[in-house]
């Protein structure tokens, strides 16, 4: 399971970075979201995958029977932040498209020198 997750995370990173290197804004945004999902899976697998164990501790039972709740909460926070940022990037891309009629980063216009 960990091997599978590691491969998935690696593929997501590679695809995300590849898309971020493209010139179209839509691809850049998809790349960003793949990248943040990749890092979420990485946190999950790096902190140890456990099978069907609850994170809430009952007194008297050994700690090995429970999952670590921290990675989940980290991922949850990262998902929320990533969602907000993604929404902002989409709006920005939409405005670029409205004002230039294109989503190619090179046609937005030359930088003022």
């Amino acid at each position, binding site marked *: 399971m960990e091997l599978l997750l590691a491969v998935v995370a690696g593929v997501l990173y590679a695809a*995300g970075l590849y898309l*971020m290197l493209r010139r179209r*804004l839509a691809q*850049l945004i998809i790349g*960003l979201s793949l*990248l*943040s999902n*990749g*890092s979420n899976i*990485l*946190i999950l*697998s*790096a*902190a*140890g995958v456990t099978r069907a164990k609850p994170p809430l501790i009952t007194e008297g039972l050994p*700690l090995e029977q429970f999952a*670590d709740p*921290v*990675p989940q909460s*980290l991922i949850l*926070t*990262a998902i929320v*932040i990533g969602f*907000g*940022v993604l929404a*902002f*990037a989409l709006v*920005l*891309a939409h*405005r*670029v498209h409205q*004002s*230039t009629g294109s989503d190619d*980063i090179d046609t*937005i*216009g030359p*930088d*003022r*020198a």
Partner: protein
Amino acid sequence: MLLALPILLPLLTAIVLHLLPQRSRLLRLVAFAGSLLVLGTAASIFARVQQTGILVLQVGSWPAPFGITLVADLFSALMIAMVSVIGVAVTGSSFAGVDPRREALGYHSLIQVVLMGVAGAFLTGDIFNLYVWFEVLLIGSFVLMSLHRTRAQLRAAFTYVGLNLLASAFLLTAIGLLYGQAGTLNLADLARAWPERRTPGLDAALSMLFLTAFGIKAGLFPLFFWLPASYHTPPAAVGALLAGLLTKVGVYAMIRVFTLLFPDPGASVYRVLLVLSAITMVLGLIGALAQRDFRRVLSFNLVGHIGFTTIGLALWSPAALGGSILYVLHHMLVISTLFLVSGLFLRQRRTTDLNALGGLYRSQPAVACLALIPLFSLAGVPPLSGFVAKVGVITPMLGGGQYLLAAVALCVSLLTVLSMARLWEEAFWKPAPVASSASALHSRLALPILAPIVFLVGLTLALTVFAGPVSTVTMRAAGQLLDRNTYIRAILGEEVPRAAR
């Protein structure tokens, strides 16, 4: 409680600003009052840290490795003080007039959000919380940057957003890997457990990930291209806020995380950082000399001088680190002042293109002389604060036998003098170009637009006059940074069980 105030006050101010009737005079007054309050708390935090040592607040009374900790040592306290000073100057400069469209879109509360994020990043003692504060200040600055929709600004905003989000993804990756191995996120707990683990391969990978993430935010050599591409488009006050604070948050985070987690001065990451800092200095200044726009010249100078602030970490000696901290403080002050000065040109001529500037010395000699102080301070002309800070960085290099590095730093200083002298000559000294109308030339600059500049220039002069006491404080701050055990003990107490795993 005192430690939470630099975060809570801007948050409250931002909320109040949203609830108030949207009359610009009222909004400006409230934002300014909020910033003054933060300045007051920052001063009292600094005084307390000076007297009693490291201050710690366990948020929600959760004991240290489990809850989120807010920490202020001398370095944090100095940075918080500087943030509040720049906050006062930036909110004060809004009295000179803000574009009404921006004001309607929440300009004032966004500035407070950025100030809150920066203060949070400087105070937190938890590495994941550091990531969260980074995102808070990034979102605030994203919106501030893209409130307008001219093409140049949209393009700049996209470059800025894309690269900073990439940096955040790298930071999150590093934090995830670190948690997977160490099982804790508290910086003090990590500092105690992590360096003893002796996993050189993972250490190298993690330190490079942190270096990349913070390097993008700070604007180090191969990663700085977003900065000059974006900082010259927003209005002057926003430029002053972002240029003064955001790159320094990257530098601060780098110094904090590396001194705690990678305390081995022989690690290869420090050699990489040394080389990158030197290249950053040289390339930044060469870039500055090639530019023909006031704010672009400033942006490249900002990049170049970031090298001075990271080199102290790379050299890993108390003297060099103290010099770098002094340099950070001086640079925050001066670069914000200069971006506010660029607001004068925007007000008078509607441009910062050097070809269209000139003649300001003839019409307003006092203003031209005022601008001379931060320009020459950035260049490091004695006896101004830049000179003191440069001495603080370069002397340890000579003492440590790094003659080549010292030569590079001195050459870069010379290039800065050249760049600054040219900037002043082009913007103030040379006769005005024929095209500019006489009315634009002779319109007086009102007091509100000059007051924040006078305030910051006064502080630069104060930093010059009190250079001795200030550098004593920065040396003590560097000593605290390198003495990890005091930090760990202040947060975790003497006898604390190890983290769960």
